[in-house]
């Protein structure tokens, strides 16, 4: 990672900053505080913790199903799909198999680019996304109900996938879209 500002910028700003406190978040006074904070952050990746914040009515598998059906539509293996989307094959497999897996934000961005829907719509499919309205849930349930795990997509499945992608491409979550 490269800093987005250079050392001249830092010197100018630091020089005019007052001498004061800058602390944020949890208190760190000893080494155990740091390790506990790291463990808490890591714990959040585990399914059991994410279940606690998951809205009860959200369909668990929406993102995984979307990825799985898109991959089948394009007749790609997990590895081939991962290469196209520029993420690791392990992560694609995790998205498909583990409904509570929360992908990296960059993965969401790349998936959205591939499926041609706004990244913001895909964010609403994540297990820890805040619930917004019923139209998304209805669309997800309809989409999930139409799917069957055959090798290629049937005509009905293809129609269902197209409808869902179309819905996601115009879904704005009740707010203005920002063009992303």
């Amino acid at each position, binding site marked *: 990672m490269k800093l987005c500002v250079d050392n001249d910028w*830092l010197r100018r700003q630091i020089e005019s900053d007052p001498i004061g406190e800058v602390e944020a978040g949890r208190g760190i006074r000893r080494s155990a505080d*740091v390790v506990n904070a790291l463990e808490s952050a890591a714990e959040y990746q585990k399914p059991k913790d994410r279940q606690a914040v998951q809205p009860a009515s959200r369909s668990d598998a929406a993102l995984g199903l979307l990825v799985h059906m898109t991959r089948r539509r394009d007749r790609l293996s997990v590895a081939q799909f991962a290469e196209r989307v520029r993420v690791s094959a392990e992560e694609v497999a995790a998205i498909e198999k583990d409904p509570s897996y929360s992908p990296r934000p960059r993965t969401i961005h790349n998936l959205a680019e591939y499926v041609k829907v706004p990244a913001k719509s895909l964010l*609403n499919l994540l297990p820890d996304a805040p619930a917004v309205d019923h139209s998304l849930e209805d669309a997800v349930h309809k989409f999930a109900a139409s799917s069957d795990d055959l090798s290629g997509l049937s005509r009905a499945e293809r129609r269902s996938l197209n409808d869902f992608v179309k819905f996601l491409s115009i879904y704005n979550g009740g707010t203005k879209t920002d063009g992303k």
Partner: protein
Amino acid sequence: MKQAIGTIPLFGLGSGKFHDAVLFRGIDLATLQSIEASWTPMFDAAAAENRPEDAHWEWAAKALQALQNPLNYELFGIEADGETQGMMLVVKGGAKCFSRHPEHPRMPLVYVDFLATAPWNRRGLIETPTYKGVGRVLFMSAVSLSIEEEFAGRVALHSLPGAEAFYRGRLSMTDMGADKDYQNLRYFELSTTQAKQLISAGP
């Protein structure tokens, strides 16, 4: 596990001039031991007599080993004079990483889980702190990470009461009020627009 990002300046309040320090990404056992040896006794005088036993460091080493290559968080630290001058943990995914800002509700952002400076750099604990600039450098690391993650510089945090003026006034973050779900600490966000303005800010 612990990698140097580069040399950055900190302002020495005793010398009245800038000194070189190193910005790191990641953490190792030596950093944890330096915090326990230097930070903890200044927070708690009794701590010096109750140094952690070997079992503590075995636990810490195992924990760090298990926490390598994290997907959803990053730890940054600054070192100068052989001491850890400050640390910051930034989370990149999860429930806290959705914007509450009216400019872009629910857009992804990075959330600062903690930003902490060494006790000798804190005005609240010591009359003349050693270095100024630790918070500024760590915060700009969070903005840089947000840009790297394609979050356009968006950053959120819960400020401790003594630091609110810094985040509101010096970093131009939006003060979104006290958060009853987080010990009533005030929640701040740096929006996309504010991030652009901050980076292009003059003196």
